[in-house]
């Protein structure tokens, strides 16, 4: 890790760690693209049970978008050396992230209650698996936020390029899982 940070801006203006992050995001996108194309191919084959996603998923979509906004504000506050709003917004984003997962879980329960079983028609199985894998990635984002929180509350407040970069990496990832969910949500809603 150290080397990467020391070698920074040797050749390109983009930081190697950021490049590495974006490549992982490309890779995650390919995984979901694989799942969505399997969904499309399977749906075209018929015997496909149509259902509407519970409204809870709309709520969770709102929550995760909100958390992206607060995390972005937190980063801006950090850059501007506003300690308290940086910390408050970071904590808020984390709580919203947890809420998102709770909401997804409630959404699955509602699907279950509506008689859509993971073992039933593949249309339902796909919805569970795709949203479930997405939640797994959100958990990764929450883990990164835990690290960010530890940095925020354990280290002395100092705005250094290294720490800006770390926070940027966390927030880029978070915006990605946010955008990914919006895409998945729209897909599952309109491509039934």
């Amino acid at each position, binding site marked *: *890790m150290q080397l990467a940070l*020391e070698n920074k801006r040797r050749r390109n203006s983009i930081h190697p760690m950021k490049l590495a992050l974006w490549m992982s995001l490309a890779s995650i996108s*390919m*995984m979901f693209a694989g799942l969505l194309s399997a969904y499309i*191919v399977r749906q075209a084959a018929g015997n496909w049970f149509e259902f509407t996603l519970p409204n809870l998923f709309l709520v969770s979509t709102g929550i995760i978008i909100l958390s992206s906004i607060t995390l972005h504000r937190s980063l801006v506050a950090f850059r501007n050396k506003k300690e308290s709003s940086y910390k408050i917004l970071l904590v808020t984003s984390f709580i919203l992230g947890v809420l998102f997962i709770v909401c997804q879980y409630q959404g699955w329960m509602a699907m279950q209650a509506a008689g859509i079983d993971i*073992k039933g028609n593949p249309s339902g199985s796909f919805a569970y698996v795709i949203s479930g894998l997405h939640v797994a990635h959100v958990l990764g984002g929450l883990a990164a936020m835990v690290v960010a929180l530890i940095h925020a509350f354990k280290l002395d407040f100092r705005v250094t390029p290294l720490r800006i970069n770390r926070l940027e990496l966390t927030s880029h990832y978070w915006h990605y899982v946010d955008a990914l969910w919006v895409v998945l949500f729209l897909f599952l809603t309109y491509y039934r």
Partner: protein
Amino acid sequence: MADSVDTTLYKKEDALIEELGYDDHFHEHHHGDKYQASFITKYIFSQDHKIIAKQFLITGMIWAIIGAAMSVIFRMQLGFPEESLTWIKPLLGKWIVVDANGVGTLDPEFYYALVTMHGTILVFFVLTAGLSGTFSNLLIPLQVGARDMASPFLNMLSYWFFFLAGIIMFISLFLNTGPFSGGWVAYPPLSALPEASSGSKAGMTMWTMSLVFFVVSVLLGGINYITTVLNLRTKGMSMWRLPLTIWAFLVTAILGLLSFPVLVAAFFLLMFDRGIGTSFYLSEIYIGGQALDHVGGSPILYQHLFWFLGHPEVYIIILPAMGLVSEVLSVQSRKPIFGYRAMVLSILAIGFLSFLVWAHHMFMSGVNPFISNIFVVFTLIIAVPSAVKVFNWISTLYRGNVRLNTPALFAIGFVSMFISGGLTGIFLGNSALDIQLHDTYFVVAHFHIVMGVAAFFGMFAGIYHWFPKLYGRFMDETMGKIHFWGTMIGAYVIFWPMHYLGMVGVPRRYYSFDAYQAFSDFDEMNMFITVGAIITFGLQLVFVINFFYSIWKGKKQTVRNPWGATSLEWTTPIRPGHGNWPGKIPSVHRWAYDYGKDGKEFIPQITPLAEGEEPSDH
């Protein structure tokens, strides 16, 4: 140091590096000491790319021996089905069934397990991790002029995930129900239903786990390789000055990054079908007269997802070999690589097209014939950049002062294999011909020659060529030549006859042909192939002995740049330490292929253009 010969040349080079090089104050930081302090951090959990390269190489070699030994055992079954195999009972235990007369036969279930493990091990552990893991690690930092990978830590993790994947697969070999036995492609329903066969039980679970860890290793490695190539090139090293090896590793890593996640998606759905009881891939199946409750899935879905990785995967295997061969051919024939830009563009074209041809593995799966036609077209188009590369390799050799040493021989052997196997690909790529050829030994012949043997030859060329860089010594030339000629002849002896078997329709993946009178005509041919395989396997031991003997006893490397190559790895000390260059990082002033220019035999990349000299890279 040992650089006593030609010291003036190397003194001049060092002066150049000091004068023009890039000072990153690397050696003032002492981070080397931090993570190379003890034996464990230096040799086991090392973060030095050169050590990690050796770890990949030696792990890959161990797997190659295991995987190849498996093929010898199942070839014995195919070549000599009547012969008693009691003598390997100590090794295989209950998988050899001994009858009342003391005649031991291989358990058919285990035959499938062997074939499956052979494919999985060779494709993933040897030709992916062993080949690109080794050489990307060794050469990327050295040839682009970097101290190490962008993230040495993730690089170390990449190796250890590979190691973990290997351990899991290895343990699965000893399961009571046997390792997975449904073929390296793991098609459902065999792979999705634990009750389908004994290998589909715990064996398949461990197979999937192992491969998921393997993918993590590939992704961590790939992200690092790409970042290093794009971000950590030294001053003056523009993309168009990169050696072809680096281009090949870069595109390989990109292919891996974009295709392996799709395989993981396929595996996730498979795991849900196995573990939870979903029906992504399963529909209306009867086992033992009993209908299962899975309805509504489609096994073809898995095939699409698998081959979307599967086809790029074969290029993930062959591209690094192509890169190594291009470099070795140019250095050893003392000529610039012919058509450098065409070479780069064809690597890019192959990489791009490899995502558009996956369904050529599924012509016979009942996909719509009109859709097949599209895939026929793209498949045949891929032959064009492949042919460009072949043409350029041959033109590089043409009228060169080729040093016919072992690395050069293996590189030339690679070209031969790639031509032979590529031509049969064009037969298979026609969906109409594929009706006859699919799932026969013709396919086995095709991919072993074009991928298996060719990639091995690329790897051997690389090992013999860069052995001095790895260990500061040379491998033995006599043993090397025996190894080359034996393997070259052996490979054709084994795989050439398989084309004939395939053309008359002998199917692959059969334990025995005694139920088909028509195929008994081929008993002698099968024996011939098996004998060839045993001898060729034996010859690989010459390589293994040579390798380990030379690490400790090989001829010492006395000069820093023994092949007279231009690229940066040969400007480091004979045994480069942590950070690769003792002082500044060299800067680069020309492309990597200035051989025979202006009456000079070669001009290293660190040499500035002479007064009035035209750069060769326009």
